[in-house]
């Protein structure tokens, strides 16, 4: 058994909540720079220039890229040979979120009761997806997710007969109808298969893969590239004002499904595609 102090988890989560909100990862930054070079619309180029200037200002001044610093989503892989000492795992994460959002002057956007309202005041609780895996490490992806792009997500319980054409139509319509609301250029996470809730979850997990990386399965890699071309033909463009860059990438995650079900979900991420990774 390897021991990890809960206070260590708190400290790391706090730091990464701030860093994720202040600076884009290299893959996102590079792909935005490339989009600025290739975008055909003058308005689209102006928007991309603002996006690049903004990320430079945010990272040098250590201020949030976007005022919507998101709901804190955490994908954690906990090795089964790890023993967390000094406190509970979820408490440690939520302590970290509270600390990071307070010390980093990040916006607290969590409504405590969905219907009756009230703000929790510290952006907790985080949404935690925990997988128990082999080994003695703890890996975490910290993903602050904004409301504008999250609201443009959708899921369909399609028929198995809908097949690839059904998937393509669902994804392209979803991005077109989302228009400027999710702050394009977007990253499109597509979940295919699983149960209703698994499908939604893997569509978000698909957003974690670095932009520009290939899908390990050549079949889905080809589908991703076709979808990216189709999505960029919608003309939605940067900020929805028209152009040739609507998405930076389409990422697919799949899971086995029931013989009668064919769930497909899309989860959009905005150009402020924030995520940080850590291994303890």
């Amino acid at each position: 058994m390897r021991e990890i102090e809960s206070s260590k988890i708190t400290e790391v989560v706090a730091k990464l909540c701030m860093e994720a909100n202040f600076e884009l990862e290299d893959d996102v930054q590079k792909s935005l720079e490339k989009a600025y070079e290739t975008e055909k619309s003058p308005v689209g180029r102006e928007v991309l220039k603002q996006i690049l200037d903004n990320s430079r200002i945010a990272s040098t001044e250590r201020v949030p890229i976007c005022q919507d610093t998101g709901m804190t989503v955490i994908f954690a892989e906990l090795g089964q040979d790890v023993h967390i000492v000094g406190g509970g795992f979820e408490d440690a994460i939520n302590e970290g979120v509270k600390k990071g959002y307070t010390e980093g002057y990040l916006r607290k956007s969590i409504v405590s009761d969905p219907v009756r309202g009230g703000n929790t005041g510290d952006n907790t609780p985080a949404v935690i997806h925990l997988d128990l895996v082999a080994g003695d490490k703890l890996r975490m992806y910290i993903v602050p997710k904004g409301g504008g792009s999250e609201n443009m997500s959708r899921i369909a319980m399609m028929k198995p007969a809908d097949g690839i054409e059904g998937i393509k139509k669902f994804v392209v319509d979803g991005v077109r109808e989302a228009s400027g609301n999710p702050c394009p250029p977007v990253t499109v996470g597509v979940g295919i298969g699983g149960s209703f809730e698994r499908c939604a979850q893997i569509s978000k997990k698909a957003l974690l893969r670095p932009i520009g990386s290939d899908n390990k399965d050549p079949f889905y890699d080809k589908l991703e590239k076709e979808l990216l071309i189709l999505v960029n033909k919608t003309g939605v463009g940067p900020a929805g004002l028209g152009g040739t860059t609507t998405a930076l990438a389409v990422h697919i995650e799949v899971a086995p499904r029931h013989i009668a079900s064919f769930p497909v979900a899309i989860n959009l991420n905005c150009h402020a595609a924030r995520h940080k990774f850590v291994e303890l």
Partner: protein
Amino acid sequence: MAEYSLETPLKDEEIRKLKAGDRVFLSGIIYTARDSAHERLVKLIEAGEELPIPLEGQVIYYVGPAPTPPGKAIGSAGPTTSYRMDPYTPLLIENGLKGMIGKGERTEPVVDAMKKGTAVYFAATGGVAALIARSVLSSEIVAYEDLGAEAIRRLEVKDFPIIVAQDCYGGNAYVEGQKKYAE
């Protein structure tokens, strides 16, 4: 695509010049309001009570800024999605509101109110919140402090970069721009 520098409050003849797609650098006083603040303003108007901010000729910015770090006028402050305000907007326009800043398209009732009331809807680029914050010279909460990030603030802005998204003639920069690049 023309370019204008405008000062608030906005006048009808200035608004009539603006066409969807034009770039504008806005200076002067603007007010922030989001969902909850809109709900309260509309309730006051319906009850015939006095509003905490003036509406005549004014511009409302749909934003819930990040907390202000020490030494800054305001925290990061980019636009939120506008259509959520659509149920409340026509009544505000009827009461003198001339401009709105947000992101994403507005629905038909707002478009009609804009035509009738000579009002304009501007888009600020969503997510470029640190850049936009630089054009805010000062910020002061003027109402509904209990709403936190959703409180109404009075902002003094200089050359706030925006685009005419929907003009007072029904022109729509989203629709026109996307049509041009759709294959």
